[in-house]
């Protein structure tokens, strides 16, 4: 199981990094812009009269603050997920009293001998 998980991580890395290595599609004005932004630009290009009728109540004042908040979002999620898996891993190992007792007995026997 552990080996499969390592392969899964490796495959994820390959799929994520490959676009950076492969040649870019031709006719690209700017590489690796966001798809959401591209859709917004396509709307404005096809409907020059459209005026957004509402604007965000608050916007991150700079790209740095924005990346801070994105990093915070990922950190909160990863932190909780890691806490959960760590907790359950600890429980699943502690939750085997027979195995613990067997190991203690074996140690005691080894010490006595």
């Amino acid at each position, binding site marked *: *199981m552990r080996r*499969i*998980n390592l392969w*899964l*991580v490796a*495959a*994820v890395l390959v*799929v*994520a990094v*490959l*676009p*950076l290595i*492969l040649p*870019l*599609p031709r006719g*690209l004005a700017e*590489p*690796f*812009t*966001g*798809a*959401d932004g*591209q*859709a*917004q630009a*396509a*709307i404005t290009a*096809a*409907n020059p009269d*459209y005026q*957004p*009728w*509402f*604007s*965000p*109540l*608050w*916007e*991150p004042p700079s790209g740095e603050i*924005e990346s801070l*908040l*994105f*990093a915070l*979002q*990922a950190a*909160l*999620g*990863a*932190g*909780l*997920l890691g806490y*959960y*898996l760590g*907790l*359950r*891993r600890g*429980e*699943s190992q502690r939750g085997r009293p027979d195995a613990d007792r067997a190991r203690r007995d074996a140690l005691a026997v080894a010490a006595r001998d």
Partner: protein
Amino acid sequence: MHIMEGFLPPVHAAAWGLASLPFLVMGARSVTRVTREHPRAKLLLASAGAFAFVLSALKIPSVTGSCSHPTGTGLGAILFGPSVMAVLGAIVLLFQALLLAHGGLTTLGANIFSMAIAGPWLVRTLGGPLSLAVFLAAGLADLATYLVTATQLALAFPDPVSGFLGALTKFGGIFALTQVPLAVIEGLLTVLVVNLLIQYSRDDLDELAFAPGVVR
């Protein structure tokens, strides 16, 4: 898949909000039921939300030369059924709308519908061997989200010449093609987390009567 603030005409924004509302109510009731009937699985439910939090924060490059992000909503739908994800996904989208100016309050209904409803509900229809089922369910939920976003935009902004279908091709080209490698990534990561759950968290899965091939 985030439709930016103010970028859906008021009628469309309201209609998608109304369409999402019953799913949100149903989702809130599912969350209450899960926490009452399976108190042990509460932390797993929060972790499914956390998974969506992480994945939707990661902008990943794609072979089309643009960037997009996975949704992370398949995992929770596989474990708890799709309805809880309406609530968990809405929390993620609200965080991004308020703090990141990513998506928006007026487009929240439409974004909830694509990411937290359409994607997760598709998961129900899949079965088969566990890893493959999980991979396909999570990956297809991810793709479906972006197809729904493209449809929403094509309905709101049909092409003056080629109409709805022309606009759908245009927005689909921006979203769906870019999303294919990301859907693969989301599928692989979801299989990874399910593997870890089977390894370390058997009790929680048993509590939820989760078994290979069970379709929720």
